C-alpha cells in the first residue's frame, strides 16, 4: 500500500485547484472541515463551487474571503446565529461579488451525491414536489413516473461528481483507511462520488486499528488521495467522541461578520494572520482544551474472529 500522509497545506495545494468543486462539510452540523476551509482561504484559491448540504459558517467564510463563486447546498448560514452575513451580502449587496447558488433541500442534495457515488445517471425523487426549489434550481427536471398509471409527477436530480471531498474522521492510518462514528450526513456518498478524497484525521493510528473493525470504515484508503493528521480539524464544529461544539466561537463570528469590515478583521485575526491549523489551535489555547471530550462511553465489544 502507498502511504498517503501529507501536511494539510500540501494536500490542499495539490488537490484543491482553482475553479474546482469541493465538498466541505457533508455531515451537516458536525465534522465541518474548517481546518481545510481556513487553508483554502490562506492559499487564496479562487472560483470554487462549494458543495455542502449544511456546513455551518464554513461556506460563509469562503464567500467572504472571495474563494467561492458557486454554492451547491441546502442551507447556508450560521447554526448559532441564523443568517450568514457574507452569504446574504453576495445576493443582496450590489457591491459584493455575486455567488451562483445551486439550490437544494437536504434530501435532494443527498440524492445528487448518492447518484454521483453510485454512478446513477440521475435520481428520481418526490421529496421536494411542490417546492419552488425546482424553479430556482434549473439543474433539476420535472418528469412523470413511467411506472405510474396516473402520470405521477417526479423530480429528476442530476448526479453530483465533486472534484474533491474533504472529510473529517476520528482516526485513520497512513494509507488513508479510516473510521468514522456518529451520524454521518452524506459524507460517505460525497466521498464515494468525488474524484479525490482528502481525509483529516483527529488521530493517526496503526493500520491494525482500522483493520480491526472494517464495518466502521467510512471510505477505504484505496479511494483516498491524501490523509492529514489534523486534530480538531472541525473546530468550532463538534466531532463525536472527540470535540464539543464551540458555540461562543460561532457566536463571535456571527457578530463580527455582520459588517464587511468586521469580517475582514475576523479573517485577519483567525485565518490570514495565523500560520496554520496548529497555530490556530495554539491561539485558541484553553478555549479549545475545554472542548476536548475526556469522558468515556465505549461501544460494546465486537468480535470479528473467523475461527
Amino acid at each position: 500500500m502507498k502511504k498517503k500522509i501529507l501536511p494539510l497545506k500540501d494536500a490542499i495545494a495539490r488537490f484543491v485547484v482553482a475553479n474546482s468543486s469541493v465538498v466541505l462539510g457533508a455531515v451537516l452540523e458536525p465534522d465541518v472541515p474548517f481546518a481545510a476551509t481556513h487553508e483554502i482561504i490562506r492559499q487564496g484559491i479562487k472560483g470554487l463551487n462549494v458543495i455542502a448540504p449544511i456546513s455551518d459558517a464554513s461556506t460563509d467564510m469562503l464567500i467572504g474571503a472571495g474563494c467561492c463563486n458557486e454554492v451547491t447546498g441546502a442551507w447556508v448560514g450560521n447554526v448559532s446565529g441564523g443568517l450568514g452575513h457574507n452569504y446574504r451580502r453576495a445576493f443582496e449587496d450590489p457591491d459584493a461579488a455575486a455567488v451562483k447558488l445551486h439550490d437544494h433541500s437536504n434530501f435532494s442534495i443527498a440524492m445528487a451525491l448518492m447518484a454521483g457515488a453510485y454512478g446513477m445517471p440521475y435520481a428520481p425523487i418526490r421529496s421536494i414536489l411542490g417546492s419552488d426549489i425546482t424553479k430556482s434550481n434549473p439543474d433539476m427536471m420535472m418528469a412523470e413516473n413511467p411506472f405510474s398509471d396516473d402520470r405521477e409527477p417526479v423530480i429528476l436530480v442530476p448526479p453530483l461528481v465533486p472534484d474533491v471531498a474533504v472529510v473529517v474522521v476520528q482516526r485513520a492510518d497512513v494509507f488513508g483507511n479510516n473510521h468514522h462514528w456518529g451520524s454521518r450526513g452524506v459524507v460517505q456518498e460525497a466521498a464515494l462520488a468525488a474524484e479525490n478524497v482528502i481525509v483529516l484525521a483527529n488521530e493517526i493510528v496503526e493500520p491494525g486499528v482500522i483493520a480491526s473493525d472494517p464495518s466502521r470504515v467510512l471510505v477505504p484508503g484505496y479511494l483516498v488521495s491524501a490523509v492529514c493528521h489534523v486534530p480538531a480539524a472541525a473546530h468550532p464544529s463538534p466531532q463525536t467522541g472527540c470535540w464539543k461544539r464551540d458555540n461562543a466561537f460561532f457566536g463571535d463570528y456571527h457578530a463580527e461578520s455582520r459588517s464587511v469590515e468586521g469580517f475582514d478583521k475576523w479573517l485577519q485575526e483567525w485565518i490570514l494572520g495565523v500560520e496554520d491549523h496548529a497555530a490556530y489551535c495554539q491561539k485558541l489555547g484553553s478555549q479549545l482544551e475545554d472542548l476536548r471530550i475526556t469522558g468515556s462511553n465505549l461501544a460494546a465489544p465486537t468480535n470479528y474472529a473467523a475461527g
Partner: protein
Amino acid sequence: MTDYSIQELMIIASAREIKDGELVFVGMRLPITAYGVARLTHAPDAVGLFECGVARYAPATDMLYTMGDPPNQLNAAWTTGLIPVMSQLQRGRVDAGFIGGAEVDRYGNVNTSYIGDFNNPKIKLPGSGGAADIAAMSKRLLVIINHEQRRLVEKVDFVTSPGYLDGGDSRATAGLKGGPSAIITDLAILRPYGPDNEMHLASLHQGHSVEEVQEKTGWNLKVLPQMVETPPPSAEEMAALHEIDKEGFWR
C-alpha cells in the same frame, strides 16, 4: 393559573400535536423540547428523527446547540447517514415534522429561502435545509412561528416548503399527500379547514382576542365556528416541561 410563559405554552401546544408511537422530525430548540414533553406525558413511544442521521427514543440529556452535537449521538437509537433517516419521509413512514420559517401563508406554505424575487432577492435567507422534504413528505406538518403580519402573509414570496400550495386540491395535483395540520404561534393555533384548505383560527391562547390575531395576520383570517381557547398547560405538562427545562430557558 397563568404561571407559564408564552413559549412554554407553545411548547406544550406543540407537544399535544405528537401522538404516541409516531415518528417525528423534531428539529431543535422549541420542537425538540415539545417532543420531550410529549414523551413524558401522552406519547412515551414517539420517536425523534434528525436530518443529520440520528433517531432517538428520548431527547438528549445534555444541552444541544445543533442536532449533530455529541449529546445527541450518545445512546441514540441510531446514528447513520442522512439518507436512511430522511428517506423515511419519502418512504411514507413519518407522521409529523416541525419546521419554522420567515414567512408562512394562507395555505400553510413556508418560505425560508428568499424575500423578494429569487433572481434578485431583497433578503437571502439560509434556505431549505430539510424543511422542504419534511413539508412535502410527512403526514402532518407543524409550523412554529411568531405571529407578526410580516410573517403570516397572504402569499409567500417563495415556497420553500409546500403547504397546500394554492389551496383546494393543488397540493394533491402536485403529487403530494399530507399537508400542514397546525401553525402554532405565540397568539393562536391555525388549522386548515374546508375544501379550500385555507388556514383558519382554530385555537386562541388565553389573553388574546380574535381581533388581535386577525390584525397581526397578513390575510383575511377566518375563524373556525368550533374555535376554542387553547387549554392552558396542565400540571402534568408543566412538570414534564420543567423536568426537561431544568434551567428555565423557556420560562
